[in-house]
């Protein structure tokens, strides 16, 4: 209860800060607009104002402050402008429309999910192999760990273009990027999880003369679940970033990444911000969903 | 129970914790006087408030009723004038500091000069028999040695009062015997006033001039036994009739507290 209040306070403070930041960020553009509309601005003329600080302009033109929250193409749109844009492009548009964020969100989401499923599946398989084969452990594991320190997302543009040149386009190239971005965290996390049972627990199974497979299903796999979910959450976030970045280099026309890029070409800041928030909401929903599954699963298994 | 001037005086002390299962009487109407140079042990089953009492003396808990003075001051004033050294159940040494660095910690906080710090560290290391280990890190030492270092840390700023909360509880019997012997020697040499929480009857009888028996729900004092044992106590005093008689009285006191509870 107290923490909910604290979170709300912090969020409210952030929103207030955002509104406050809009004023100095947008004041110059706003003054040009209101002056054009016939208002008295001190000092008159954009050239006169060039040398002045934003705060000085605000102090002399207090009347223009509300207008900084209502510009059409502000440098920093106000929270309600983004909220209105989000509402207009989700609830008010048909979802098949090219201007619907639901449509763009789905394009990105489908690539994310496909890639995530492939990446996670392969990641778990490799982790099982690593835990059971000493050669694989020693050969592959160091490279999997090193991969965590490398910005492998830099491969994204190349994958899109190369796959395009061999005739593969649409969802698959983006899914490939999503897959390899989620692959490595899952491998590393899952290996850690499968190794998490301590020596005593393993010795206990040895006293039962349990086979490797029995050890895997009855001890290693259940013990790895908290680690698996932790890496799944990292993996899905990485997958989403992969899908968004995968939409950048080709001049794709659909997807949240395409919306970001188009917005930045045409200076449509409100569109950029709403695409950004759509991506954030999507990420939060995916991570939250995994968190929910985690809680239900772990409770069923008596681990939480 | 005073032969000498009182150092710690508690009068009608009450402490009630508010928990989710309702209020818990950790201490109820506890009165006790500890004289200068006394070695007082607090013994009783878990939940009898012996640790809580010690924490009240150290101003780590606030009593909800009654009064307590340490060196004639409130516990909080005593804490701020650094009147006591506190030894916890675990050594709690900082792993990123050497043994000497750990002993230096309170001295740094209390603003001793660098030269004085060095001198005191050297002195107390000798006092607890850890010369030559000052440069080691805690994780390079055994549990018993770590606990000795934590006692040295409490001794370093030379407070007259030592409050010890089951300091040897986590150690094995053999190490424990050894440390008991050393602690007794140290007490005799320094003449400090020691309040010592334990749940071991032999330990309490072996060390103390006074044994305070406590019982739970609500936490209270049921008996205070003055030890008739001589000042000089070799370890084999524990096999003498006098020792066993005191131990028997403590055990009876604990049992009485227990039956009262049922």
């Amino acid at each position, binding site marked *: 209860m107290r923490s909910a209040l604290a979170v709300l306070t912090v969020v409210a403070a952030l929103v207030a800060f955002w509104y406050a930041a809009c004023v100095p960020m947008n004041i110059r553009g706003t003054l040009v607009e209101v002056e054009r509309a016939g208002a008295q601005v001190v000092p008159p003329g954009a050239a006169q104002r060039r040398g002045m600080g934003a705060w000085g302009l605000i102090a002399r033109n207090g009347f223009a402050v509300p207008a900084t929250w209502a510009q059409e193409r502000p440098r920093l749109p106000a929270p309600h402008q983004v909220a209105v844009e989000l509402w207009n492009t989700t609830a008010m548009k048909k979802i098949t429309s090219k201007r619907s964020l639901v449509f763009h969100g789905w394009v990105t989401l489908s690539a994310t999910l496909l890639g995530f499923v492939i990446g996670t599946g392969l990641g778990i398989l490799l982790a099982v192999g690593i835990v059971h084969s000493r050669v694989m452990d020693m050969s592959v594991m160091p*490279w999997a760990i090193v991969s965590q*320190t490398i910005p492998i997302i830099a491969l994204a543009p190349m994958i899109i*273009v*190369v796959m395009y040149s061999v005739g593969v386009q649409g969802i698959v190239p983006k899914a490939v990027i999503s897959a390899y971005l989620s692959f490595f965290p899952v491998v590393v996390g899952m290996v850690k999880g499968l190794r998490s049972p301590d020596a005593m627990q393993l010795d206990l199974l040895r006293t039962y003369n349990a086979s490797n497979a029995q050890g895997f299903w009855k001890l290693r796999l259940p013990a790895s679940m908290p680690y698996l979910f932790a890496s799944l959450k990292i993996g899905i976030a990485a997958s989403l970033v992969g899908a968004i*970045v995968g939409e950048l280099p080709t001049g794709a026309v659909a997807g949240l990444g395409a919306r970001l890029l188009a917005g930045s070409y045409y200076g449509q800041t409100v569109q950029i911000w709403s695409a950004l928030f759509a991506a954030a909401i999507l990420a*939060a929903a995916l991570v939250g969903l995994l968190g929910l599954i985690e809680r239900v699963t772990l409770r069923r298994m008596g681990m939480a | 129970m005073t032969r000498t001037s009182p150092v710690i005086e508690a009068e009608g002390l009450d402490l009630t914790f508010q928990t989710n299962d309702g209020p818990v009487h950790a201490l109820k109407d506890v009165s006790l006087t500890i004289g200068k140079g006394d070695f007082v042990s607090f013994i009783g089953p878990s939940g009898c408030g012996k640790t809580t009492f010690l924490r009240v003396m150290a101003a780590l808990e606030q009593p909800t009723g009654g009064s307590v003075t340490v060196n004639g001051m409130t516990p909080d004033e005593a804490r701020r004038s650094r009147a006591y050294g506190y030894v916890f159940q675990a050594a709690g040494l900082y792993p990123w500091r050497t043994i000497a660095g750990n002993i230096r910690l309170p001295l740094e906080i209390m603003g001793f000069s660098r030269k004085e710090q060095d001198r005191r560290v050297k002195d107390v290391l000798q006092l607890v028999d850890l010369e030559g280990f000052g440069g080691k890190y805690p994780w390079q030492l055994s549990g018993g040695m770590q606990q000795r270092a934590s006692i040295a840390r409490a001794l370093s700023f030379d407070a007259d009062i030592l409050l010890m909360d089951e300091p040897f509880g986590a150690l094995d019997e053999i190490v424990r015997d050894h440390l008991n012997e050393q602690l007794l020697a140290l007490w005799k040499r320094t003449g400090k006033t020691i309040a010592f929480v334990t749940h071991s009857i032999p330990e309490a009888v072996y060390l103390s001039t006074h044994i305070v028996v406590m019982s739970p729900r609500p936490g209270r004092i049921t008996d205070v036994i003055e030890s008739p044992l001589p000042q000089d106590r070799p370890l084999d005093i524990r096999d003498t009739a006098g020792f066993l008689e005191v131990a028997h009285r403590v055990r009876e006191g604990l049992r009485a507290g227990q039956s009262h509870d049922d």
Partner: protein
Amino acid sequence: MILLVAAFLLWAFGWWLNVRLASGPLADSRAVQLLVAAIFGITVLAVWELLVRGLQVPMVILPAPSLIAVRFASSTDVLWADFVQTFLKGALCGYAIGCGAAVLTAILVDRSEFLRLGLLPVGNFVAALPIVGTAPILVMWFGFDWQSKAAVVVVMVFFPMLVNTVAGLRETSQMQRDLMQTYAASYWQGFFKLRLPAAMPFIFNGLKICTTLALIGAIVAEFFGSPIVGMGFRISTSVGQLALDMVWAEIFMAALAGTLFYGAVALIERSVTFWHPSQQG
């Protein structure tokens, strides 16, 4: 055809060698562990080379490692300029500012239980968001040059660092705090002598996570606009020109920078948190 057979044989030989080494008597020594990983890496590279040549894969799909190496060696000046622009200016500046600001914020937050309760969930939430998406906005605000890349990096590293530092500053036991209280230590004495050293493992964990984030932020931000220098710029333009050998050379550069950056932070970590159980394995 011969090359394909050679690739297959080489793979089999490399694997056989590693099986022998991994089940050999010295398998637990550090040298053999490094050797096995190196053999695996070299085998992959050699098989890649042989397959590309054997199947005559066109350069625009996958260049052979030897071609990439030649390109790397012949364009060190370009690569160095890109490295300075993207890593030294963009990533490193942003990393220093972002991590520094996060640690200072964490120290402020730590004084207030209420702020901590409120900021930690928000920080965790933001840390999971696709922050690279702020790149077009920040490029718009700070211009095409490295300042906007540094700004993206600041935003990317701030919250993971904040969350780790706040968690670290809480990482003291009740007993350790009680001890400080028995000494009547002031807030800042307790902070510098107890809580800050105790938080170091967490702070370094955050610093290590952020090394990778910083490079990702700096490179991806360049996809949204940059001057004609920089690793992200080079990758996206070389992809456009189908000069894949250059792309791979640049990726190798990025990998090298990322690994060394991480390694450097890990090295400092080892000397600062030598006392922590995780460093004594």
